[in-house]
């Protein structure tokens, strides 16, 4: 009981109560003899799970499409965050576009293959996204134009367990944000 109160105080102090409009459904776990416990649960009736398709491959991809700019994915070697080959050109093209269009915003999504530790892979995806961010900053992009997230191994483009799929999944995706899209 003591910790329950503590956590509630903590949440109140940070002003961080979960937002009902989030696209998630917290659910009460109703085991035997626990009827009525759901009164405290939140979000179960929010029904906010529908809509907005920015997960994975978008149907209509926002952002510039001409030439190299249509390519939004930079691939990496195993356990590496070094931008190589065509990746260098792709990053340069997007960096130039962003520098020329200061109101444009991107989210860099770091990803890994699904081998090993999911937590370490979050770090590795972060390192890849950071590698792309640093390259863009060096080429004149403003820090305020870039948000970074790492999904680690959680969002493979190819879920198969073989070297070809793994190579596809070791990547940074550049996602252009429309003004209404979340992600700062």
């Amino acid at each position, binding site marked *: 009981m003591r910790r329950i109160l503590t956590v509630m105080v903590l949440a109140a102090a940070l002003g961080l109560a979960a937002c009902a409009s989030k696209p998630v*459904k917290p659910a*009460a776990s109703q085991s035997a003899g626990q009827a009525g416990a*759901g009164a405290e649960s939140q979000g179960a009736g929010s029904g906010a799970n529908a809509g907005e398709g920015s997960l994975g491959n978008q149907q209509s991809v926002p952002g510039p499409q001409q030439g190299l700019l249509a390519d939004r994915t930079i691939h990496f070697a195993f356990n590496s965050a070094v931008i190589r080959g065509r990746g260098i050109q792709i990053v340069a093209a997007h960096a130039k576009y962003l520098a020329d269009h200061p109101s444009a915003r991107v989210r860099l999504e770091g990803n890994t293959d699904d081998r090993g530790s999911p937590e370490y892979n979050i770090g590795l995806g972060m390192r890849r996204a950071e590698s792309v961010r640093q390259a863009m900053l060096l080429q004149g992009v403003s820090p305020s134009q870039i948000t970074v*997230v790492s999904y680690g191994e959680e969002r493979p483009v190819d879920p198969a367990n073989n070297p070809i799929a793994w190579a596809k999944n070791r990547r940074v995706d550049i996602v252009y944000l429309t003004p209404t899209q979340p992600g700062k």
Partner: protein
Amino acid sequence: MAGALTPAWAQLTIKITSGVTHPVPIAVVPFSEAPTDPVNVAGVIQHDLVGSGRFSALARAQMPATPSHAAQVAFPLWKSTGVDYMVVGRVVPLSGGELAVDFNLLNVLTGQSVVRKRFTGPPTALRNAAHRVSDAIYQAITGIRGAFDTRVAYVAVVGEGPAQRFQLVVADADGYNQHLILESRFPIMSPVWSPDGKWLAYVSFEDHLSAVYLQRVRTGQRYRVSARAGENGAPSFSPNGQELALTLSGVSGYPQIYVLDLHTHQLTRVTHTPAINTGAVWAPDGRALYFTSDRAGSPQIYRKSLTPGSYPRRITFTDGYNASPRVSPDGKLLAMVTQVDGRYCIAVQNLKTGAFRVLTQGPLDSTPSFAPNGATIIYAERPNPNGGAILATVSVDGLTGMTLKPTHGAVQDPTWGPFRQH
């Protein structure tokens, strides 16, 4: 609405990888119970005991009789079946709608009772009562506290493309009684139990931002405790439940380990190396953290005492890749994911002697988690070249394993809950 969940695994297969050399032969005689009872009590007990790898069960067809009281047992007949022990019992309705499960574990060679008990509860908890019988039998014969009446949390991934959903699920340790805790279009990962079993901490990526949440299992009430810039990941409760270790990258891009005091909200940084530092877990005495870092190149496991001024000490030295440390409840073993000839396997290292033992064959095993009795590890494996993960268990001696397969979708990131308080 709350808790409604299409069972992700109606199908449940036991795979005994090799079994101990001399499993204890036991007969679990069908309990006397009403045909309307929702659970076949003897069936659940037998499943638990055989699944542990330490017992072999006498087939029903070979049982000479079906006694439900010790007084009804003709021991010479049972001796001839070759079993060392037998369990008899019955389910008795009590006034007020509850059920009592009476059982008696008998030594067939001596005819003596080893342990006899009664567990009571509502009909909906009959399955849990059966697991408690299994716990009592397991402890009486092996000397190790049973962990059948425990729960696991895991993440199910169902659907594809825009319809893909991540589900945080809590179930009994044998996969039954699944309850949906959270559903999201965005990834959910790294669930972990509070020491009292009342809370889960986890990472959720709602709106493309990672954040660490605490959620009360019974009510669904939840709190976001860390949503800073960059990564918020890898939560782990301290043994007293008052602190949370977690990983924050800030804007530097280098994930570092911190400890968040849940009382004072004070955040204390633990690592200071420009490398990946993540996945911290606590030593059982709460005075040190084990974590993964690639400060020396490849990921390895380090130990950092929380005494001010102390330096991290490297714990693993095998080549290549060691990550996802988990400390056994008695503090003696460190489980991890290790790389052997390109295969990712679960291994344990004796923290005192350094002895290292690979328990599984891989090729893609991850996220080990100890049962609260320390006898078994649950983890995720990917045996199918095109499919997602399933759950599996392995005994800490590596001899016995079991798989828990979903009927559809993938299940990953298992974490074993503490002993239940009755």
